[in-house]
């Protein structure tokens, strides 16, 4: 698919990151093409942020090959960083400065002329809908506004690649949708987006292609659609039974659908035809307390690939 293009913007082979004896990233391969929206999904500790930091050239690789924009992060870090935009997981805004000052300072870090930075700052404040707060200090802004300011700031150097580490974690639903909308516009302007998330809806909304990471490795790769087709069924039937009766009910359901999963609070049947499957459930004389037939989501893929045990 990337044939004909000169070189992927991000190219990794056998990429490794070690912290002492701990292997955070365990030999992954990546190709991100220009204009793509590429996502890293995975539970906490899967190695997403470590990978992002290596791509952002603020963390030396421990092994393998990594090339960003055709350049070598080991020797050309500053040149690469000059063409990247970074939205870190934790905001690094200066709360004491105003919204506009945060943009001006950041633009100066790139060595851009003052006049250019000023002009871009105004455009970006419009873009992230903060123009009316330009003179306000950052401190009292809402989480969503701060996030938008961080995004505006990351765009001050007109980056070719925008790296977003959990861009909407901690935001309320309205704020998340505003952020998604802005990112969607950037994608349409041709900015390559690389993001990490553990929100499946975020990945489905934004990503053309994504990898699911688990324990430092890539567990699966593809478009959201492909991953659902490959790792889940079209539909999922969720059945709830009175407390403690899940196991008993599940035994009667063996053989239905592609796969059966018993959770503490419900039984899941994965099937390509959810309604048909439900008919068979009833035909076997099983009567759940409540029933939900729904489409498979990335979340089903994610939980299948990375397990349901809690990662702290």
């Amino acid at each position: 698919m990337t044939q004909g293009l000169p070189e992927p913007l991000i190219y990794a082979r056998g990429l490794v990151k070690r912290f002492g004896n701990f292997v955070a990233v365990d030999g992954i391969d990546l190709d991100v093409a220009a204009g793509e929206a590429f996502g890293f999904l995975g539970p906490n500790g899967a190695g997403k942020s470590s990978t992002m930091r290596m791509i952002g050239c603020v963390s030396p690789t421990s092994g393998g090959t990594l090339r960003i924009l055709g350049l070598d992060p080991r020797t050309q870090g500053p040149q690469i960083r000059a063409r990247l935009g970074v939205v870190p997981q934790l905001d690094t805004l200066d709360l004491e400065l105003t919204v506009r000052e945060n943009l001006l300072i950041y633009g100066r870090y790139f060595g851009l002329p003052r006049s250019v930075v000023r002009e871009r700052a105004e455009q970006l404040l419009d873009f992230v809908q903060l123009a009316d707060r330009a003179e306000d200090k950052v401190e009292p802004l809402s989480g969503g506004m701060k996030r938008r300011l961080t995004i505006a700031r990351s765009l001050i150097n007109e980056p070719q690649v925008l790296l977003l580490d959990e861009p909407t974690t901690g935001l309320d639903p309205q704020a998340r949708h505003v952020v998604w909308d802005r990112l969607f516009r950037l994608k349409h302007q041709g900015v390559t987006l690389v993001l990490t998330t553990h929100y499946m809806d975020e990945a489905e909304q934004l990503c053309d292609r994504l990898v699911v990471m688990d324990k430092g490795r890539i567990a699966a790769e593809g478009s959201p659609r492909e991953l659902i087709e490959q790792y889940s069924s079209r539909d999922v039937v969720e059945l709830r039974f009175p407390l403690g009766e899940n196991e008993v009910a599940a035994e009667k359901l063996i053989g239905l659908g592609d796969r059966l999963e018993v959770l503490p609070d419900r039984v899941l049947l994965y099937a390509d035809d959810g309604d048909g499957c439900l008919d068979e459930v009833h035909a076997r004389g099983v009567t759940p307390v409540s029933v939900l037939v729904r489409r498979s989501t990335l979340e089903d893929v994610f939980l299948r690939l990375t397990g349901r045990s809690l990662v702290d």
Partner: protein
Amino acid sequence: MSTLSSLPAMRSYSYWLQVYKRTWRGTVITSVVSPVMYLAAMGVGLGSLVKGGQGTGGLSYLQFVAPGLLAATAMQIGSAEATYPVLGGFKWIRNYHAAAVTPLSPGAILAGHLMWIATRGAMASGIYLAIVAAFGGLRTSLAILALPVCVLVALAFAAPVAAYAATREMDNGFAALQRFGIVPMFLFSGTFFSVTQLPWAIRPIAYITPLWHGVQLTRDLTTGQLESGGAWLVPVHVGYLLALTALGVFLALKYFRSRLTV
């Protein structure tokens, strides 16, 4: 076109300048009020009880104590500006991390901050020097050279303290540094009385404090009379302060790198 302001260290410097534009009023007031109070209390008040003599090298007490206070101010600015602001750059405001994802290197981030601290040292010392002059505490126009010496003193403290701060996760070491490092130096490194008044057994401790070297230099310059050791000690003092600055920069660079590129 490459100009001075496009140098990476200057870009990091401009951050501190921008922040300072919000807070300069308070620091200027401190920089004026503090020397006036100290010089009035120590130089004039206490000085009225102190007869200049052998212990002051024949100087009036005001003339004796003013260069001490001058160097001590540079020390305090240098160390204070390298504690909370440096740790805050990593931990609280995280402005170092913000800069680290841009083309700026850890070295440029550090250099910009140290240059800023040097600027603050120069500003505070310049105001101090002018006020000493107004009090009649300067005996020669050579005293103007005390200004670069104060900048050097500020850096000789700022660089090692920044290195220390860069290794910290919490700020609880800073109070100890102040209590067991800065305050004892302020009191015993020749600021208020000559180190030769100290018992001979503890005198070597005073000689290895960087403040003593700074005070000797500022006193040589503002009074126009060299300390009893003679001219050869001047390069020793300057060399000592430069060495300390260099060591501090070396260590700070190491810790900044390891903390910003993990």
